[in-house]
């Protein structure tokens, strides 16, 4: 990519975000009165923002469980179990979407490999869940069923620590984080940017998918990991466990939002946007874009790993098809549909696209790919700012 082309595309595609700057102005004005010795330039959320945030969190983490568990099943307000699990899944997707938005919307890096980080988090959790089955599997062996099937006699070394829930939780964070750090280190150091980065992340997903499809790799090959029974002693078939996982996923999304919001409103967030808009200038201003990119790429991967770990116990399976390049690209479309560079649009997009997917794949399965394809084209051509862009424009 030539310099000119990059800067041209940056200029045309940089979605600038009126909300943040106007909020900054407000905050600015309010601080001039107090004039503290040192302060953040932007608050993480405005007062109104915190109110809305709290209301949404309360609704999804308290009201929804009540509608499911406390409201009798014949009531019109009752929320069936399958919807709770579905929403739980959507919250996991929303975490991914926010993490993607931090990377793409703010820093201008489009990763087409985030499905890998999601799947790695899922695999780490899946390994624990599979070990938690103990000898209650089909073959009544202490080894996971697929290993018995492959005639393995001993647990591979990388499976051994996964018996412990907390080790698995650490692996959920560390494995995607490490991969992202290493990959990002090589990629950003050699100044691979723009579509080149997108393409090599896609190659990364492709390679890892092939690797995980192999039986010898030791993650159940084609079938992946499944037939989970317990998580931390709780049965996965109990409604209370399902509700618990749902609430955790929702909480995960709200915490993810706050973390990302903290990053984007900090000075580091302004550096990230500066990297997106004029990488040369930020470099000549004394910032090292590589370390900022590496930080945000790794953070985003870790968040995806958490999302994957929350996702797997709810859907009950993890297999290499999660690493298909198409899955990672779909993640990008959630963000694009919701609207980039706001952190609010991304979860909206995740809910909207996946809601539509759930409906279409049941009602009109043949049409779903047309709808998805049309979304890809339509959003890029006609709604570059996505749902949130339309909403915030009409709200003003």
């Amino acid at each position, binding site marked *: 990519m030539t310099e000119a082309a990059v800067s041209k595309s940056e*200029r045309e595609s*940089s979605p*600038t*975000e009126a909300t943040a*700057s106007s909020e*900054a*102005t407000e905050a*600015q004005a309010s601080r001039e009165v107090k*004039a*503290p*010795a*040192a*302060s*953040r*330039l932007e608050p993480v959320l405005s007062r109104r923002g915190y109110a809305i945030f709290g209301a949404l969190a309360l609704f999804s983490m308290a009201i929804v469980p009540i509608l499911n568990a406390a409201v009798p099943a014949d009531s019109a307000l009752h929320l069936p179990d399958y919807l709770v699990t579905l929403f739980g899944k959507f919250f996991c997707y929303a975490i991914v979407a926010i993490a993607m938005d931090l990377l793409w919307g703010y820093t201008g890096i489009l990763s087409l490999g985030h499905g890998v980080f999601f799947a790695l988090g899922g695999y780490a959790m899946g390994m624990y869940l599979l070990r938690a089955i103990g000898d209650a599997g089909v073959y009544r062996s202490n080894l996971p069923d697929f290993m018995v099937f492959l005639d393995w006699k001993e647990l591979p070394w990388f499976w051994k620590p996964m018996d412990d829930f907390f080790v698995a939780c650490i692996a959920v964070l560390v494995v995607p984080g490490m991969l992202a750090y290493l990959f990002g280190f090589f990629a950003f150091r050699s100044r691979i940017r723009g579509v080149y980065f997108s393409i090599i992340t896609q190659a990364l997903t492709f390679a890892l998918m092939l690797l995980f499809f192999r039986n010898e790799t030791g993650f159940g090959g084609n079938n992946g990991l499944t037939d989970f029974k317990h998580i931390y002693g709780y049965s996965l078939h109990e409604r209370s466990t399902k509700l618990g996982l749902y609430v955790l996923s929702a909480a995960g999304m709200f915490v993810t939002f706050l973390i990302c919001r*903290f*990053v984007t409103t*900090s*000075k*580091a967030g*302004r*550096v990230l*946007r*500066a990297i*997106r*808009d*004029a990488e*040369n*200038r*930020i*470099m*000549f*201003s*004394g*910032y*090292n*874009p*590589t*370390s*900022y990119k590496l*930080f945000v790429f790794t953070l985003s991967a870790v968040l995806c790993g958490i999302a994957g770990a929350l996702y797997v116990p709810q859907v009950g399976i993890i297999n290499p098809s999660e690493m298909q390049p198409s899955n990672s690209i779909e993640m990008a479309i959630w963000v694009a549909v919701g609207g980039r560079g706001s952190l609010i649009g991304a979860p909206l997009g995740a809910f909207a696209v996946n809601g539509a997917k759930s409906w279409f794949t049941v009602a009109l399965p043949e049409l779903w790919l047309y709808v998805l394809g049309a979304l890809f084209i339509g959003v890029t051509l006609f709604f570059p700012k996505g749902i949130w862009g339309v909403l915030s424009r009409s709200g003003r």
Partner: protein
Amino acid sequence: MTAVESARALRDVTPASPEVEAPPPEVKPEAPKPSKRRSIPSIAPRRRTVDKARYEALTAGRKALLCVDAVTVSFDGFKALDNLTLVLDEGELRCIIGPNGAGKTTLQDVITGKTKPDSGCVFMVGDHTDLTQLDEHEIAQRGICRKFQRPTVFQGHTVFENLELALPGSKGVFASLFARLSRAERERIERTLELIGLTEHAHTRAGLLSHGQKQWLEIGMLLAQEPRVLLVDEPVAGMTHKEMERTAELLNALAGERTVVVVEHDMEFVRSIARTVTVLHEGRVLAEGSMDAVQNDPKVIEVYLGES
């Protein structure tokens, strides 16, 4: 504010303002420290520090600040810089001229770290580190700033934020995650805003500014960055005569406290500001000296002035 006033104000306020925490840079020569980061790998192993003898030879007997020592850059066999040596003194205003392809832009690229030379090194006085082994941002942190020909500001950020990002200080990821803006820094930004006449646009997105305002914002950012060396690339390209005058005043005002290097094509403009002129030709220094001396140099007349 007129150009003269603003230039004067800049000279008066910017470098010597008492609130500025950073000590005057030239007082604090950094100990030579090897760079931790590796740069683009080259075939032959290269030294990370400058040869002592060369250092002494180049800096002896003058108030040198930045030395470019025997730098060669070639692109596919074409030598953009050919064993070029150049010493810039503290506080001087140096004009670098030369016909197209003389290596002016490549020279700036080498100094700012954008281009890695095939051989030779660049160093600052008081520090034996070879700057060519560093990345762009590390060089910038050492006080070498660059003004692009086309104004380059952060379009999506407000003017205030643009200046905030330019302030000196710790620029690592974690420092900026938890960074807070001190009162002194805030005042400093406000003063700079006044200087560049953009106070009422403080919270306007830079992308919405006019071309001229962007130029001034970029200058403000460079000043906020506290540079020791300021590289300015063709500052008057496409300017009216009046704007040229104003820019000349500004550059003259900036020199003295900091080293200013103006790379320029326009001889008229150079004549109006120049104290020392370096003429580049085919990647080498053809002549160096006062404008008059250079102008009467037969070699220069032949390759450069003779043409125009």
